[in-house]
């Protein structure tokens, strides 16, 4: 579990609404317009996206916010860089944004992210549904949700794995 001093972090939830999807939801203490802007303008993306902190940065951020326009974000870390890119499919500020997302290391696996921004008394609930393309990735997502449901604790697994690796 991530230790954080961010507000609203207990509103973060991960669910698997269908075999091919994973859904992330979280409440943000800001109006929809700002949340949408923060996700679609480089000056903002560079400030929050990816791993940040000592030795981490977002040296590349390209956003062509048009339907069919491309985006590409690079996260630099102490051991190298990871890049994600994709294409915008639907742009309806401030309520909806649909785009593809590809992890550059696995270019064959294209996921589609549907971000829905809904107003909750001046706050914004972001619901990001990520749809995966293949059986293989679907199974991963499916199993990840199910492993949780079965109460297999990841902490427990870590402990167990550490113990077994030492023995």
């Amino acid at each position, binding site marked *: 579990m991530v230790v954080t001093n*961010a507000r609203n972090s207990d509103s*973060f939830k991960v669910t698997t609404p269908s075999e091919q999807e994973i859904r992330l939801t979280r409440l943000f203490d*800001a109006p929809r317009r700002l949340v949408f802007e923060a996700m679609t303008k480089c000056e903002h993306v560079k400030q929050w996206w990816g791993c940040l902190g000592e030795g981490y940065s977002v040296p590349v951020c390209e956003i062509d916010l048009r339907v069919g326009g491309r985006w590409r974000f690079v996260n630099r870390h102490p051991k190298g860089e990871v890049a994600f890119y994709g294409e915008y499919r639907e742009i309806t500020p401030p309520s909806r944004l649909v785009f593809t997302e590809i992890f550059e290391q696995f270019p064959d696996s294209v996921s589609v992210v549907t971000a829905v921004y809904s107003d909750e008394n001046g706050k914004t609930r972001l619901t990001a549904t990520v749809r995966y393309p293949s059986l293989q990735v679907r*199974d991963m997502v499916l*199993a990840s949700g199910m492993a949780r449901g079965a109460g297999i604790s990841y902490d427990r697994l870590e402990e167990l794995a550490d113990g*077994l690796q030492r023995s």
Partner: protein
Amino acid sequence: MPVDQLSATFAALADPTRRAILSRLLSGECSVTDLAEPFEMSMPAVSKHLRVLERAGLIARRREAQWRHCRVEAGPLKEVADWTERYRHIWEQRFDQLDQYLQQMKTKETKRHGRNKRKK
């Protein structure tokens, strides 16, 4: 771990009985007979699940006299745990950072309001 191995692991986990078997084994090695007991299932049916788990590298079986024992193999489970935890962690972190950054945006915007008209 090769990607298809991870995939086999996930496929093996995508079944409630097999996950229950794994949960049981996480508390320690046990015999196949003891393992089968809570599942109201025939031994061949349990064996079939065990074979899937074994092929996925999730458990190991060994024979001791006439007893067959099972235990969890941590490697693949750890891969799965790492993969899902990394995924969750990345998004949780991204969203926390976004939330913090939005507070800065709000502050800036409030200041701007005093001087300029609100942008569209």
